[in-house]
């Protein structure tokens, strides 16, 4: 398990650095926007996205004739049940919440690093920081850009479709985009390149699960700011992760000089 140990070691160092960098960026760029959105969420009452939609349909059906009384009773009861279904343990606001966010960033930073190192080793490995930047760009395209087209970063209290179908779409899109980019980058064949384009485009033709109604208390400007902040912080994260992996691997592998010669 010599190789496995090396991969984990490299991924742990680069993932730690990139995770801490991302946590710092989030503390300034994205988390304040999430906290702002939570003010709207609490004003709306409850945690669930379906609330606004349920309230809407409730108002509409109560305005309708009395034979709709049965259907209006259903959303009202689900609305009443929701607060009790929430919420389980949660970190206290302030330092505890910040600390858990840092931990989540580091752990997943190492997770993404493991994936990136393992995949890149199949293609010869990340030889230096410049190659790492390109691998990082690929990671950004696969894990942020592609799924973000169909499911843009969302703030609390924004309407969204059922969780599971969205997660399935997200994972399928990531997988299809990764395979597509890999085919373009590493197979010199026109039919495979065409297949790659099909793979990258297909999830968006199928379409991401969308909410019934897009109505939300969140101001459009706040959401737009959040989308920009998420996309840019993720971009920097992936660039730092890729470049970091190149540097650490170069220091660690020792044989990197030959890789450097053969690539850059």
């Amino acid at each position, binding site marked *: 398990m010599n190789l496995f140990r090396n991969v984990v070691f490299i991924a742990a160092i680069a993932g730690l650095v990139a995770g801490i960098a991302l946590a710092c960026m989030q503390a300034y760029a994205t988390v304040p926007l999430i906290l702002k959105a939570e003010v709207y969420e609490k004003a709306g009452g409850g945690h669930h996205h379906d609330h606004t939609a349920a309230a809407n349909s409730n108002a509409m059906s109560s305005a309708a004739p009395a034979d709709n009384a049965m259907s209006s009773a259903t959303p009202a009861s689900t609305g009443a049940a929701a607060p009790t279904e929430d919420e*389980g343990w949660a970190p206290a606001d302030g330092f505890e919440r910040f600390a858990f966010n840092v931990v989540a960033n580091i752990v*997943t930073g190492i997770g993404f690093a493991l994936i990136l190192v393992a995949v890149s080793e199949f293609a010869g490995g990340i030889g230096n920081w410049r190659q790492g930047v390109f691998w990082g760009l690929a990671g950004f395209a696969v894990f942020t850009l592609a799924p973000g087209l169909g499911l843009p970063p969302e703030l609390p209290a924004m309407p969204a479709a059922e969780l599971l179908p*969205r997660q399935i779409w997200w994972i399928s899109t990531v997988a299809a985009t990764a395979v597509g980019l890999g085919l373009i980058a590493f197979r010199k064949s026109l039919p495979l390149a065409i297949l790659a384009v099909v793979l990258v485009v297909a999830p968006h033709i199928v379409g991401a699960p969308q909410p019934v109604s897009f109505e939300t208390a969140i101001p459009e400007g706040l959401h737009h700011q959040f989308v920009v902040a998420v996309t840019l912080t993720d971009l920097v994260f992936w660039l730092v992760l890729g470049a970091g992996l190149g540097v650490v691997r170069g220091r660690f592998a020792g044989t990197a000089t030959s890789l450097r010669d053969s690539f850059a």
Partner: protein
Amino acid sequence: MNTASVSLGASVSSQSRIMQLALAALLGIFVVGFVGFSHIDAVHNAAHDYRHSMAFPCH
């Protein structure tokens, strides 16, 4: 490409190489999946801000 001879695990056979790399990738997928996609309430709440900030499907 003579990648096997110049990459991280210079001495391992190609089959064991693939196995170990696949294992590392699976470990990474498991870690990201658990933090970002788990339906356990406590995990969701602990990583809540992270999930939103990475545009993972949330709630």
